[in-house]
């Protein structure tokens, strides 16, 4: 989308930083915008060495859609978990699930793992060292395959699409 250059290695990050700066300052005066832009330029340059190679973000708008989907799921998840927690009889069938990953890049995997944790009944507990399998703990699962398919459908595919890998 935005061409990567030497002096602007991570455009999206720069944008995020500028936005954060303005959020922090609570001001959109010219001075703050200039200063924010400067920071948005300098900080990525400084921190660039500490970034691992990034997959290209191909469809930012899909990312926005993804975020809203996760937010929605979070709310549902909370209600479900609350119900389970408050259930005086404590009826649950917890399980560990080995989720075979299709994603290969770390950033999307991280986003996926986080999404899984934040959303209904599941917590990602281990990314194995080969980065092929994500172990998930589900609080109340009927069928493991079902859960895997759901995750694949709701989160991993969109992520694959977003990062096009």
């Amino acid at each position: 989308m935005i061409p990567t250059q030497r002096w602007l290695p991570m455009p999206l990050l720069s944008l995020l930083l500028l936005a954060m700066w303005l959020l922090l300052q609570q001001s959109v005066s010219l001075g703050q915008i200039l200063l924010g832009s400067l920071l948005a330029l300098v900080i990525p340059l400084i921190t660039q060495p500490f970034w691992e190679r990034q997959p290209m973000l191909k469809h930012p708008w899909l990312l926005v859609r993804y975020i809203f989907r996760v937010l929605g799921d979070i709310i549902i998840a909370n209600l479900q978990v609350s119900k389970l927690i408050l259930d005086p009889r404590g009826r649950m069938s917890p399980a560990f699930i080995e989720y075979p990953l299709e994603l290969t890049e770390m950033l999307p995997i991280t986003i996926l793992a986080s999404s899984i944790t934040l959303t209904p009944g599941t917590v990602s507990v281990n990314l194995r060292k080969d980065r092929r399998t994500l172990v998930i703990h589900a609080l109340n699962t009927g069928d493991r395959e079902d859960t895997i398919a759901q995750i694949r459908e709701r989160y991993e595919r969109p992520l694959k699409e977003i990062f096009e890998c």
Partner: protein
Amino acid sequence: MSLLLIVLLPLLGSLVPLMGSNERRNACATMTAVAPTIALGIALAYMGQVLDGDIPRAAVSWIPALGLELAMRLDGLSLLFVLLILGIGLLIILYTRFYLADGDDMPRFYAFLMLFMTSMLGIVMADNLLLLWVFWELTSLSSFLLIGYWYRQSEARKGARMALTVTGAGGLALLAGLLLIGQIVGSYDMQVVLDSRELIQQDPRYLPALLLVLLGAFTKSAQVPFQFWLPHAMAAPTPVSAFLHSATMVKAGVFLLARMHPALAGSEAWLYLVGLTGLVTLLYGAYFALLKHDLKGILAFSTVSHLGIITLLFGLDSRLAVVAGLFHIVNHACFKAALFMTAGIVDHECGTRDIRKLKGLWRFMPLTTTMAVLAGAAMAGVPLFNGFLSKEMMLAESLQTPLLGGLSWLIPALATVGSLLSVAYSLRLVRNVFFDGPARDLPRTPHEPPRLMLAPVMLLTVICVVVGLLPALTMTALLEAAASAALAGDSPELHLAIWHGVNPALLMSLTALLGGLLLYLQRRHVFAFQRQFRPRDARLLFEMGIQLGVRIAQRAIDSLENGSLQRYMLWLVIAVLCVAGSALTQTSGLQGPLENQPLDGLLIAGAIIAMFAGLATAIMHRRRLISLLMLSIVGLMTSLAFARFSAPDLALTQLAVEVVNMILLMLALFFLPQKTPQESGAPRILRDVLLAAGFGGIVASLNYAVLTRPLESISDFYLENSVPGGGGHNVVNVILVDFRGFDTLGEITVLCIAAIGIYKLLNRLRLFMPSSDADGRPWALDHHPAILGTVAQTILPLALLVSFFIFLRGHNAPGGGFIAGLITAAALLLLYIARGVDWTQQRAPIQFQPIAVAGVGVATLTGVGSFVFGQPFLTSAYGHFHIPLIGDIELATAILFDLGVYLTVVGSTLMMLANLGKMTTRHRPSKNKEQA
């Protein structure tokens, strides 16, 4: 002024021999003799004046605050001693030239000797009490060096130390005594003191002062019971013994009696203390002199005895006795020096000083024998010799004494016994060595010594004889002058003559002579009598005493300082409980005028959590990680409390420090045992709980007491001036970077030093690295969880942004360089945790020490910058600048200062933690690494 030269010349002279060489001995001796010769010349030049009753004085101001003046006087008493010291001293120099063996270090000997001579001259000429003490102590010290001259011999070392210990102790007593006298009189000026007899003796401090002074005098002059050091000082080379035990060292003690006589004598106390001590010493010395087999031993005990005579004389309440004492000082000096030198010659020539081995030396060394006989006769008090005259005076005066009241006849009787003994040992000394049949089994065949070595002996013997024959002619003037000084007035009229007619004293003398002869002949009975007693070696006893003292000291110290931190900490707590307790018990109540503010549930919950966590930290301390978690709850609660009570800056700082602190503690915990073993027993725990409770109670009480009292503080100034004066709205920050910026400079210096100190500690550290955790579980194999790495790299830029934000706003809102620095550091640490040291350092090889140091540097230079404007260090400036399009910008030097803080924090924190990480990584067991 030339008076001072008498003392100072020998002092300078003590440097002279050091310039000479051990090879050119004649030159060395000659050079050494120059200074005392000149000094003697000066003294002689003053002689006429002194004998006329003048007291020449010279003074140089030294320490007015102490009343110590470099003041010298040359009255008759001083003159008498000066002549003795310098005269005999010169003879000793000559004698030494021949006495010392080739291997002995002559320059060193002469240097010590001259130092000793100086200090003796100082004592006798001092016109100031404290100055006298100064030289007094110097004689102890220089005699220590002289006695220890042959330091390879154990006897020499021990003898030297013993002499130093005894005379040193006496010196300290003397100091106390003289200071007391000074306090009584209000001056240390000798003349003033000597003129204040009434004042002194009526003061309640007189008796302690007298005792202390006498303690000094008696230790120095080897009076019983302090006599024991003297015989062991014989380990010194003979010239030293000759000098120390005839004219000098031991005479310093009796000199002091004479010197202080006008001020201190005349009281009952003086009479008994001095007189009886002298008497006992006289008998003691004489008796043991008879028993000794070592030539020098005999002479040493004889010295003790003669010093007893002199002391006795000063103790008798009579003016003539004082004169006799002075006279005996001179006489004793002459014959004793001669005898010591003779003994040295005998030792030198025969290779032994054992009287049982020596015999019939007169055949080999007739001249020496002659000298020995003459000097021995003087010592024995044979008529026509000088010793006779003074001894007879002693006997005569002993008849007059009021001492012991009804039993006063004991004094002359015992004095006679002493004289009798003296005759006996003199006889034994002379006859057994030089006569008594032909010599046998001597280690070496003796010869007559070199003439120049014998010359001093001859000169001294001649003096003995001449004085003995012509006492009035030779001695009257000098003695009168000396006596008038010692008696503070005119001397009694002296009638020094060989013949005073038949009087009790003469009869006593004769008794002594005959009795002595008889005793000598029957001496085996005495030896037999003495054999019943176990011989005890004073040196051994002394050594044992010292050893015992040292051991007791060591035991005391070891038990007190057992190297236990707990013990030391305990003392600290006890100290706190004592002082704070003593203060708090005085208050009527803790509650001040202010009422408690109302409580709410949140506060109660917070307090409960904090207290619970604090207690849990302590209670669960044996499980270290849990204790650490509890600690971090306390940290969290502390920062919440700061937030609750209007201290946002503190809350932020506490939070940021807390996390770094936790990381640090955990890093360290890895290398320490994970659990603390159960070590303290119940009593110890109970004790510590009680102490801790007491301490906590005091802290709480103080806190409550302060909180319930109103406060008028200087803080209004800061609130009022923060904006106009410091250009910032956040008063806490303005205080930190401006009002009290100096504190902050110190604080970041501390941080920087701590980091550097840690760097030093990590240097060449050999770590103990557990290969499994506390429960024996091996470590996980995943070094750097991948998801963590991704999040860390994402957070870093955000954190940097936040930290920049916090930094910039610090002056006007909560924040500032310190917090910003910690945020930056924490974010970088997260990266280190997530990615490891190698990965991180590889990508950004940063040296942290220069950053930390540069930070302090920036802050310092900001402060120095104000010099340019003629303002004090750290004076701030700020201004508002209008920039088109952007608007008003406030720029303050405080920001620059804060930048220094920021850099220091970042540099120091990472220097501490990253270095630690780096070094552990280097040492991590390779087993794990391969699998990684």
